[in-house]
């Protein structure tokens, strides 16, 4: 169960900081500019909906409409500045593939790192590891190499199979 009531997310620009920086710039460069500092920006305002178990909800909007911001609110990344959010159960979100890949580490190590970031324990990942490698179709020799040697297609495949294989409940 997910319920959002009148959720809003605000990004505020630090007015004082911008003013201070402009003042320093003016002092150094000897000019007298005035930069208008905009105070705040609501990325989400008055969002409310409900989702029950088993629902599949699609969110459509143009660029900058706030789809990702909404997802970030749902996954606890952002705390709403107004309104309320109620979530029964656990939410794990996958906002983009290949999150937090460390280029210097091997494919295998990145699978573990990624899983742990999503909150799985080492033992959980041990069980899933072979499935992930198999689904990605990556060669066994490549999986031990740092992923900076991967082609972009290989990286995408690894990212996708990591995302696909975590046991998510619907």
């Amino acid at each position: 169960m997910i319920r959002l009531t009148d959720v809003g997310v605000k990004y505020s620009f630090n007015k004082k900081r911008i003013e201070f920086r402009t003042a320093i710039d003016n002092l150094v460069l000897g000019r007298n500019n005035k930069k208008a500092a905009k105070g705040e920006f609501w990325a989400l305002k008055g969002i409310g909906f409900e989702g029950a178990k088993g629902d599949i909800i699609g969110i459509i909007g143009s660029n900058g409409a706030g789809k990702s911001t909404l997802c970030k609110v749902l996954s606890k990344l952002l705390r709403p500045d107004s309104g309320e959010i109620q979530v029964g159960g656990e939410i794990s979100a996958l906002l983009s593939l290949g999150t937090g890949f460390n280029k210097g580490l091997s494919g295998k190590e990145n699978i573990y790192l990624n899983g742990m970031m999503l909150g799985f324990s080492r033992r959980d990942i041990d069980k899933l590891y072979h499935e992930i490698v198999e689904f990605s179709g990556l060669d066994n020799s490549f999986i031990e190499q740092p992923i900076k040697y991967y082609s972009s297609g290989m990286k995408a495949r690894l990212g996708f199979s990591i995302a696909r294989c975590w046991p998510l409940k619907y």
Partner: protein
Amino acid sequence: MDSYIKELIKRRDLLIYLVTSGLKAQHRNSFLGYFWWLLDPLLGVVVYYFLVAVLFGHGGEAYGVYLVVGMITWRWLSTTTMSSAKAITGQSGIISQVYLPKIIFPLGTSLTQLVNFSFGLVIIALFLVYFKIMPGVEILWLPFIMFIQQLFLLAISLTLGYISVFIRDIENVLSHLMRIWFYSSPVIWEADRIPAKYSWLIDINPASAFLISYRNIFMHGSNPELLKLLLIGTASIIVIGFMIYYYNRNEHKIIKAL
């Protein structure tokens, strides 16, 4: 705060993994590989030994040991401080995508440096053998001093890690502050040579408490500066406790500022 600590404990696998994989990734592509773990601290000592003992002709008989203990202690302190300013800002890719207790990053950074320091201890041991200095039973204080220093560094890195998200200037200022701190601490100069007028410099400096304590147990066969260490430890624990509370309340602001 309880649930925050529980969440952190749940993520201990990740913490361990961040530390070990960070250590491995450090030198993976170099020709000398893991050998750098020993070479890094050693080269730092060699440079200053050349400067002070060879060029300036200062330093007593066992100056090599004096310097190596000082430099390796200092290295732990400075690398932790410097890297903790980047601990959270450097992970913006991860932080903006997955929910994690943010405190895990400065925590991981300071634990990584603890491992680096342990390799430094090997260098110290080599110097002690070479200069034929045999530490007494006081060496048993070593884990205690390290524990206090770890607490001290943890307090620093939790604080710096958080603040530097909002005030990016800290990274720039820090390298200069560290240099001032370096020269005002008895790392390359000898603590007992300081004029009485300036001895307060040593008294108020937590770094000198560590430096003197390590040298006491390694070289002089005497006890560490217990009172000062306990004082530093207590203060650090208070700061750490406050920072855990503070992260719990305020860490959601980090993602907006990154």
